């Protein structure tokens, strides 16, 4: 308890904003999800009656539109929050101690600097994990409640445990950068750059893997949301040959004319997509990669703190 109390007293404002903020966001997402569910059920009843909508139904439509707007804002914010929380809690954690020279007091008192680092980071890690897991769950509920209501690739990193794992990895990177630089502002800026590079790399890798695993499927399968679409073509129903749009246009220009159906005769449209069943695999892969990053930066941080001078410069 004393550890938690001291951690709170050392960083009460940061914790209030950076842990309280995601908790408030989670509460807002849960509220919007609940309201969305209730409103859509009521709207179903409105539309079931047929005919013109009543005034109360029209107000429900307006309310659901408002909720949908809020939902997109909240899910958008959910992608940014783990990065902000991780950077602003991680980067200053040790760099501030070095900058303010409190390490001169704490390190000789503690027989092991690694233990000191553990004592400083673990309470924050636990707080981050709890707050961001709640946010991830609330965001998931919100995405499910908002039409079309399917989780999947279009909502990657906007919900679920990946939110918390991202924040933890960014926090770890921030702690290491802060430990190396020993200055708060440069640590925040450099952590931001490192995190952008890391996430860009992960996205690039993910995209490559998703394209590698993409398959051609019929239009009916694309209607279910949650897939990641990379392109479309036509399938010759007789031969099973894939025909590009350009080839199809050259062979059947009338089909694409003003009176055409847009579909060449004897062909059906197909799409190159990564199927939604692969979504959990990609999330698990990213969680695994981020946990490896966290372990590596933790190990490096323990090594660095062993030889680092307690003062900046």
């Amino acid at each position, binding site marked *: 308890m004393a550890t938690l109390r*001291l951690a709170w*007293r050392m960083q009460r404002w940061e914790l209030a904003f950076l842990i309280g903020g995601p908790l408030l966001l989670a509460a807002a997402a849960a509220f919007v999800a609940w309201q969305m569910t209730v409103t859509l059920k009521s709207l179903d009843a409105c539309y079931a009656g047929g005919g013109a909508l009543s005034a109360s139904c029209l107000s429900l439509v307006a309310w659901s539109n408002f909720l949908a707007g809020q939902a997109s804002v909240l899910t958008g914010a959910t992608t940014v929050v783990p990065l902000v929380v991780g950077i602003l809690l991680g980067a200053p954690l040790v760099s501030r101690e070095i900058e*303010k*020279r409190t390490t001169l007091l704490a390190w*000789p*008192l*503690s027989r092991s600097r690694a233990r000191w680092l553990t004592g400083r980071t673990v309470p924050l890690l636990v707080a981050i994990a709890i707050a961001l897991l709640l946010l991830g769950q609330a965001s998931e509920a919100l995405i499910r409640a908002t039409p079309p209501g399917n989780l999947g690739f279009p909502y990657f990193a906007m919900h679920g445990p990946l939110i918390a794992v991202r924040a933890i990895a960014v926090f770890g990177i921030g702690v290491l950068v802060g430990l190396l630089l020993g200055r708060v502002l440069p640590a925040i800026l450099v952590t931001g750059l490192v995190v952008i590079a890391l996430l860009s790399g992960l996205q690039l890798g993910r995209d490559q893997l998703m394209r590698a695993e993409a398959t051609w499927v019929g239009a009916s399968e694309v209607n279910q949301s949650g897939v990641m679409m990379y392109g479309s073509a036509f399938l010759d129903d007789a031969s099973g040959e894939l025909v590009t749009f350009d080839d199809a246009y050259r062979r059947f220009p009338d089909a694409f004319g003003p009176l055409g159906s847009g579909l060449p005769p004897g062909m059906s449209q197909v799409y190159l997509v990564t199927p939604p069943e692969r979504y959990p695999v990609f999330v698990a892969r990213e969680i695994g990669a981020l946990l490896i990053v966290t372990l590596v930066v933790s190990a490096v941080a323990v090594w660095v703190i062993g030889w680092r001078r307690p003062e900046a410069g």
Partner: protein
Amino acid sequence: MTDAVLEARGLAKRYRRGVLALAGIDLELPAGGITALVGPNAAGKSTLIKTWVGFEKPTRGSVSVMGIDPWRDRSRALAKVGYVPQSPALYDGLSVDDHLDLAVQLRPGFDRAYATQRLAQLDIPADRRARSLSGGQQAQVALALALGTRAPILLLDEPLASLDPLARREFLHVVTDAVRGDGATALLSSHIVTDVEQACDRLIVLGIGHVLLQQTVADALAEHAVSLTERPDAVSSFAAADGSRIWLVHGASDRAATLEEIVLGYLASGRTRTVAA
């Protein structure tokens, strides 16, 4: 194996920018008593102390704390040491009590009651946040944290530098009291001789990276004198308070030397040595 609790052997420290802080010094501090580590700014006092705390890695040579190399076995070495940094370096947002709680968390066996009692004797409010304490009170809190470790060695890195005369006296009183009471060994660095004159048993004068004198205060006073005329065997000459030139010599001469004159004489000799080097 020697009886020294703190040792330095051929210790040299060069910083990354090429600054030579210590140029191969040899030192031995026996157990018990208070040793003053005196020298001008940039003499290497802090660097020397920081090598014993395991903050600085020697570029050459070695240091030991009760026979333990603080760089290779830091945890065992730190168990023997209580350290007070140059500026108190307390956590602004934590109260005095919180600092004691923190010390209990960090240091197994930290004697909270002892530290609390020390602070209570000085009427330092336990619930006051560090940022609202005076400089003297902050220094006393830092000292209480070091004393609470009950370590046999206290390393005090210029804790008096930013204190007013009254706070300095109170601080030294607490150090003296604790060291005499516990039988600990204290190394107190300062660039102000008058501060340490009353409290210290031994004296180390550090020039720019060199040990210029290492002796008990009693021996230093007994073995040095001041000559008012030039002496070829003088340690050095320097300006007296009245502007006249005086020479510090070994043995008897015109009058006995004060501790301040001994320190000034050796610092002047160190300057000549540096220039000659």
